């Protein structure tokens, strides 16, 4: 397809695995109503999502992609295909090929003409042939671990190539979040892979899109300080990107939420470290001189973004089995509730000396505290009257870890007065190692899915 100079609309209908499945409808309606070239992206991967997907694939070779894929895509697939809205997503997770086949079957089941679906591959480094590459970087840290997944964060080039080859749907795995936006922009405008300023601007447009509602008033409301209209119906974002990569962020029509300067500022800096060097596989983006300005109701313009040459290496996350997480909770209420909850924690500490317990007094002090309990130790006991004690610990051996839920349950009869509502859980843990590998060691490709026989 030949490059275009007309503005591009990119709507985002998911910001994480487990996001709302009714998000896409209003985004697609808006893209259709506005007309012109448009894409729909779904961002559904986080640091641990891929490892969980890899575990599902082990149990079932046809699984391992986004569990909500069907629910997310089915309501909008027909309209997207009918109106030439192309779809790009990392919802392939640990099994992009199976995801693509699922979409193919979904389209057939809906009576739609078979869409051209591309599968991006190369990010998955979990196979035995990649072991020397990982070991060269991680060394002894790899000794004795039980690896679950290993994925490189790959960039936009394979997506752009797949779109240039005519794909209507691109299914990827561990593509870096902003690359879901950069790929369509590269393809649409015909940008080169070293057009750093344009790639950086599209990257930051993608950064604003990649958490879905978070740029539209989601994750923002703070009554009396940051009020958000109709938060229950918060909309999802649409970026309007021009041929230089500049963008205006807006949202789906007829939805709640708000696209405000304050909210877009928060999201622009979300998960950013050095603003002069936001690293992605595509480019090093520099937002140190970025500016945001209002561009009408629910519209904000981003400018002042610059780009520098992309990193020579790709980031790789290796997830491995990490023993067991044991948790238990019990509630105390009424007079001296906090004192009784604190006594219960003391009982557990005395009963479980081998476990390093984290203690939360929910209703008095919990998530602000550190695992070692320093903040709790320096906070004078109060007289909170409705306190939920929560304890947590980890252990490599299941038999040791499961002593915690048993001891929390025993507080019913053996603990302080009036404890109720025990809940316990024991979950396998995943731990992560990170390293950098040379870009050339991760060959990337896309393949068009064969038509069903």
């Amino acid at each position, binding site marked *: 397809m030949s490059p275009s100079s007309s503005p591009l609309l990119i709507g985002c209908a998911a910001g994480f695995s487990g996001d709302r499945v009714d998000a896409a409808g209003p985004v697609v309606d808006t893209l259709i109503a506005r007309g012109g070239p448009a894409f729909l992206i779904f961002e559904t991967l986080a640091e*641990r999502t891929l490892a969980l997907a890899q575990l599902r694939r082990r149990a079932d070779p046809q699984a391992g992609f986004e569990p909500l894929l069907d629910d997310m895509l089915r309501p909008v697939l027909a309209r997207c295909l009918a109106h030439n809205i192309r779809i790009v997503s990392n919802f392939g997770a640990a099994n992009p090929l199976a995801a693509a086949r699922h979409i193919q079957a979904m389209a057939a089941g809906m009576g739609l003409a078979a869409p051209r679906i591309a599968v991006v591959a190369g990010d998955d480094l979990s196979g035995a042939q990649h072991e020397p590459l990982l070991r060269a970087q991680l060394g002894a840290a790899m000794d004795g671990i039980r690896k679950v997944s290993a994925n490189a964060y790959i960039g936009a080039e394979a997506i752009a190539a797949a779109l240039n080859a005519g794909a209507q749907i691109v299914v990827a795995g561990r593509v870096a979040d902003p690359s879901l936006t950069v790929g369509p922009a590269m393809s649409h405008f015909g940008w080169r892979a070293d057009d750093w300023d344009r790639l950086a601007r599209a990257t930051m447009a993608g950064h604003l899109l990649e958490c879905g509602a978070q740029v539209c008033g989601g994750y923002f409301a703070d009554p009396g300080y940051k009020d958000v209209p109709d938060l229950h119906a918060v909309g999802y974002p649409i970026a309007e990107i021009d041929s230089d990569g500049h963008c205006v962020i807006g949202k789906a029509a007829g939805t709640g939420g708000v696209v405000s300067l304050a909210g877009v500022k928060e999201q622009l800096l979300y998960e950013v470290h050095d603003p002069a060097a936001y690293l992605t596989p595509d480019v090093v983006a520099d937002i140190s001189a970025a500016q945001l300005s209002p561009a009408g109701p629910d519209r904000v313009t981003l400018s002042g973004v610059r780009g520098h040459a992309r990193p020579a290496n790709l980031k790789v996350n290796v997830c491995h089995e990490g023993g067991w997480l044991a948790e238990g909770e019990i509630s105390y209420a009424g007079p001296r509730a906090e004192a009784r909850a604190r006594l219960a924690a003391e009982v557990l500490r005395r009963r479980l000396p081998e476990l390093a317990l984290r203690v939360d007094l929910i209703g008095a002090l919990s998530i602000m505290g550190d695992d070692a309990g320093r903040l709790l130790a320096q906070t004078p006991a109060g007289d909170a009257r409705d306190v939920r004690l929560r304890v947590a610990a980890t252990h490599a051996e299941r038999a040791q870890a499961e002593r915690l839920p048993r001891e929390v349950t025993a507080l019913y009869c053996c603990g302080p007065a009036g404890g109720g509502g025990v809940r316990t859980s024991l979950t396998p843990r995943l731990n992560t190692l990170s390293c950098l590998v040379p870009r050339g060691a991760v060959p990337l490709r896309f393949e068009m899915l064969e038509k069903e026989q």
Partner: protein
Amino acid sequence: MSAPNITVPLYRAAHGRTGDKGNRSNISVIAWHPDLYPMLLSQVTEQVVAQHFAHRQPGRVQRFELPGLAALNFVLDDVLDGGVNDALNLDTHGKALSFWLLDLPIEIPAELAPLLEGPP
């Protein structure tokens, strides 16, 4: 004679959001009005933030300035008890940490009080 100052919690002068990557947290502190930004610059320093998070034992605190947004971005190393896969905290991401920082008291010239957000 200089105007008197008033002491307010940081959340009346600024808002923010926390992000996480690995064992590292970033917290934005964004002035509600550009005229409040100089007070953030002079009072919400790396040292002050490191002290405020002392119980989390940060390995390093870095502050980045974004004058075009009237915002600061703090990066706190090693404050998430290992991060999302390792921490025992219910909030493994440290999502709540911006509200810990926004409780910090700061001094504002009294004449800027109309620029503050929320009930006095």
